[in-house]
């Protein structure tokens, strides 16, 4: 493979893309569609994970202080816990008012005065992740001045189960879709190679080296993969942008805020580009392999 051959292959890849426009377009569109579906699914999965994490970090532990507890000491003790994200103190008077509001009739509760208020001081503690709730609750239970510790044990357990289940579902489906996309692209490239089987045969008879035969296909496959990935990214990005804007406009509850940070979306779009290019490149190599090793 000398310089002339390289130059030739480059030119040839371009000429071939131009002459087989339909085939190239079909392949590129296929790459785009399959990567688009994969990417869309990963965006969905990122958002679901995001929502679950939001819910998780909103799980509250209600800490009922004993009637004679040192509230300030307990507050600082709670705040120093590693897994704790936030501690809110609801003083007993405030608790009474809230209870009245929650029951829909604040006036009814005016029978209570600060003196006969049956409610204790309550801390609302939020931890960083659902997995840390039970250990944090355990730790809090042992603190002096704590009467009762309460949290949605069942809900936390279910959230954890959902999270685990959803992430394995996502990994499995992503893998499936990914393999599907790869298989699809390779199959298409193989069809396009099959259509040029004769050409490859003639090249071999003329004494072309395998590398020489391979290079234009490789370049073509790479370009098609990259273009397909770019197309998929573009469409996906436009769609996602429109969708997330519409979600935000609707002022949905906090839980449904879409993921928009570059840190989270970057890997997905980057992954699409890399995957598309790699599949195009290696798919074409794989597709011509068996036409080269006959004799």
């Amino acid at each position: 493979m000398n310089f002339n051959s390289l130059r030739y292959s480059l030119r040839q890849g371009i000429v071939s893309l131009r002459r087989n426009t339909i085939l190239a377009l079909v392949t590129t569109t296929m790459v785009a569609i399959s990567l688009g579906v994969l990417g869309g699914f990963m965006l969905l999965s990122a958002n679901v994970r995001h929502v679950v994490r939001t819910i998780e970090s909103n799980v509250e532990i209600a800490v009922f202080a004993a009637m004679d507890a040192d509230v300030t000491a307990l507050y600082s003790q709670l705040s120093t816990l590693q897994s704790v994200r936030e501690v809110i103190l609801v003083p007993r008077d405030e608790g009474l008012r809230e209870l009245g509001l929650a029951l829909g009739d604040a006036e009814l509760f005016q029978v209570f005065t600060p003196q006969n208020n049956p409610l204790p001081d309550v801390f609302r503690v939020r931890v960083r992740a659902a997995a840390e709730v039970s250990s944090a609750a355990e730790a809090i239970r042992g603190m002096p001045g704590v009467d009762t510790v309460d949290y949605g044990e069942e809900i936390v357990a279910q959230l954890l189960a959902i999270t685990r289940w959803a992430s394995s579902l996502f990994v499995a489906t992503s893998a499936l879709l990914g393999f599907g996309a790869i298989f699809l692209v390779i199959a298409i490239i193989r069809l396009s190679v099959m259509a040029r089987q004769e050409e490859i045969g003639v090249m071999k008879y003329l004494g072309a080296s395998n590398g020489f035969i391979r290079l234009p296909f490789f370049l073509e496959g790479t370009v098609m993969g990259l273009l397909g990935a770019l197309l998929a990214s573009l469409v996906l990005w436009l769609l996602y942008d429109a969708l997330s804007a519409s979600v935000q406009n609707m002022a949905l509850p906090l839980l449904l805020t879409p993921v928009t940070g570059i840190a989270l979306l970057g890997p997905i779009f980057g992954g699409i580009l890399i995957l598309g290019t790699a599949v195009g490149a290696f798919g074409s190599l794989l597709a011509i392999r068996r036409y080269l090793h006959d004799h």
Partner: protein
Amino acid sequence: MLNVKEVSQRYPGSKQYALQDITLTVGSGEFVFLVGQSGAGKSTLLRLLFREYLPSSGLITYRGRNLARFNGRELLNYRRKIGMVFQDFRLLKQKTVFENVAFALEVVGHSPQAVRKAVPEALAQVGLLDRRHAFPAELSGGEQQRVGIARAMVRKPQLILADEPTGNVDPDTALQLMELFAAINKTGTTIVIATHASDMVDRLRQRVVQLERGRVVRDDKRGGYVGEL
């Protein structure tokens, strides 16, 4: 140069032998006509010499080296020394006449300048310079055949194997082409031509190897075409 020893060829799935016990020597610089009825095994022999595949049995050597022992690189180098004219042309449909001939040079890494010089020469020799921008589908049968001949000659190979190179051209053009082969042969190139063109064979008076049902039945130093006609 080429040594064929007790070579037989039976195609997979076929009961009959396409070639049977062929023994033949082609010296460097020789001009050999391969004649025989349709289906006698001429193309098969040429394909074996080209190492398109290996014979079922027997030995073929090129300058003493066993073709069956070639590794990938050696096979490549061997084919690069040969100009092959296929009975079914095997032009690349997607390339123009010029590109088809140029391809034979590009494959072995010639520079664009070399290509731009050699290709028009070869096309002129077969009378197709003015059709150089046409695609194979836009050529007449004889024109396609001549593109195949130009492609085989453009590399100035040591050995030319031509399978029925004048089947689609008129007798005048056929004679010109045969004379072209003879001229190239004069420069030292070994030439083996499988042909049915009896009058050409009779005219050129070169070595004639006749096959019949896969066997060599005649090998004349300066023979003619012997048939019923």
